[in-house]
């Protein structure tokens, strides 16, 4: 080292090439494992459930075995589908109404300081109260038809849409807005080309919450009033102590939920492929 002077360049030999794949591969991250593991876990839980029910001779009224529930789903299939249709349709319409109104209100709040000051604290207030408790009011106002269930479903799905959209509309970097202003862009241009696309990932996370809320809204409505629908079927089966039919209806409800959620998530994938960050 003593011979080295300031600024001398000492060539450094390249290190020997490291063997490829030196790191141990983590099998749990393999795509197949990501499908196989959760399915295997659920299957194991069902098997354990089946085994314990049989081993302890649990009465079917208390807890039917998964095989008994499966048999009930098969035997009641046309019946389940018939009741799933109104539930799914009302939830979908309630969700769509909540989406349109929620985004519209969020846009209004983000453009009008007066509207924001007057309405936003109230939106937060409603977001905090347990809205399920208000369901009977909707029946008082709108009767026992599907309009009260639609309105209630829309009402509880509406808040996550407003709040997520508002958060998203405020997510544009301030320098981007300054640039638009410096370029003398009109505010509708800024909205369409900048603020709304920036808000899309936020809007979709709100919509995914809203779609599950919309189903909850319809089910609660059906518990109170309906003569059809999966909520009605669950309550009816419960009055007959038909536990396996309750379980079959719940399974059907899961299918309805997955279909609606899947539709929103699919649309999100499609749109965020272009507008994702």
């Amino acid at each position, binding site marked *: 080292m003593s011979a080295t002077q300031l600024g001398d360049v000492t060539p450094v030999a390249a290190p020997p090439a490291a063997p490829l794949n030196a790191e141990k591969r983590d099998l749990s991250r393999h795509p197949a494992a990501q499908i196989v593991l959760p399915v295997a876990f659920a299957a194991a839980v069902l098997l354990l459930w089946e085994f314990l029910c049989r081993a302890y001779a649990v009465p079917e009224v208390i807890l039917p075995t998964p095989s008994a529930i499966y048999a009930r789903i098969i035997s009641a299939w046309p019946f389940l589908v018939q009741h799933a249709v109104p539930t799914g349709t009302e939830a979908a319409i309630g969700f769509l109404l909540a989406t349109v109104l929620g985004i519209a209100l969020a846009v209004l709040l983000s453009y009008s300081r007066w509207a924001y000051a007057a309405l936003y604290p109230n939106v937060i207030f409603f977001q905090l109260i347990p809205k399920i408790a208000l369901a009977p009011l909707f029946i008082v106002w709108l009767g026992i038809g599907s309009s009260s269930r639609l309105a209630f479903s829309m009402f509880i799905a509406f808040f996550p849409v407003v709040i997520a959209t508002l958060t998203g509309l405020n997510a544009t*970097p301030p*320098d*981007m807005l*300054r*640039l*638009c*202003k*410096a*370029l*003398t*862009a*009109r505010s509708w*241009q*800024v909205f369409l*080309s*900048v603020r709304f*696309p920036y808000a899309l990932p936020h809007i979709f996370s709100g919509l995914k919450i809203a779609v599950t809320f919309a189903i909850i809204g319809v089910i609660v409505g059906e518990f109170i009033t309906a003569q059809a629908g999966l909520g009605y079927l669950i309550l009816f089966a419960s009055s007959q102590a038909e536990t396996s039919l309750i379980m079959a209806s719940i399974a059907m409800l899961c299918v309805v939920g997955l279909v609606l959620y899947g539709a929103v998530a699919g649309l999100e994938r499609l749109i965020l492929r*272009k*507008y*994702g*960050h």
Partner: protein
Amino acid sequence: MISLRGVRKTYASPAGPIEAVAGVSVDIAEGEFVSILGPSGCGKSTLLMMLAGLESITAGSITIGGQPMTGPRRDAGLVFQDATLLPWLSARDNVLFPIKMMRLPREKYVARAEELLHSVGLGDFMDKRPRELSGGMRQRVALCRSLVHTPSIMLMDEPFSALDAITRDEMALVLLDLWARHRKTGIFITHSIREAVLLSDRVLVMTKRPAVVVADVKIPFARPRDESVQDSPEFTAIVARLRGMIEHSIKVAA
């Protein structure tokens, strides 16, 4: 010619008014590249935003070509510290973004946008989205965007501050080359003394409390310049002089 006369900016705050800019009077000739050098928080960004018409002027006046400033001007191009590109647009469409916002016919500017991207070495990246580009490449796109609508003034607010040191040096050369081709009036905010001296015809030193210009230093190197300018003893001497001024002003302020 851009003329600033006694320009002040005061913000109201609960603790009383805060003086961000305390009376700046400067003339900048057309085609001149001027750096405003100073410690952070000395009001240099506020001054730039006033020049862009994005901040109101509390007192004094700014005139550009004899016309008083009234608001945002379409003949200015802006570059920020962050590239602020739209993530869903290609490099080409990001460069054309001002055309869209200014409601100008896109087809007349596509060739210019592509030529600008070529000139900064992004000819093969025009269809890439920002997330596929490096930080330096994104800032090159932002430089092209500031020039696409043929502005007469380029306003740059610490455009290279968020980049790593090596990329930063490279970007200074990209800008030097770009400016040599287009010869806009350039106003460049920085806290890098070397960057200011390399790029500018004049360096204005700004200090805080009061936020005023304390020195106006002419940079004598001929144009076109390249990186070799930095190796001359004269360059080192100017850098040292400016550093002395800034250190002194910080001591006085503290």
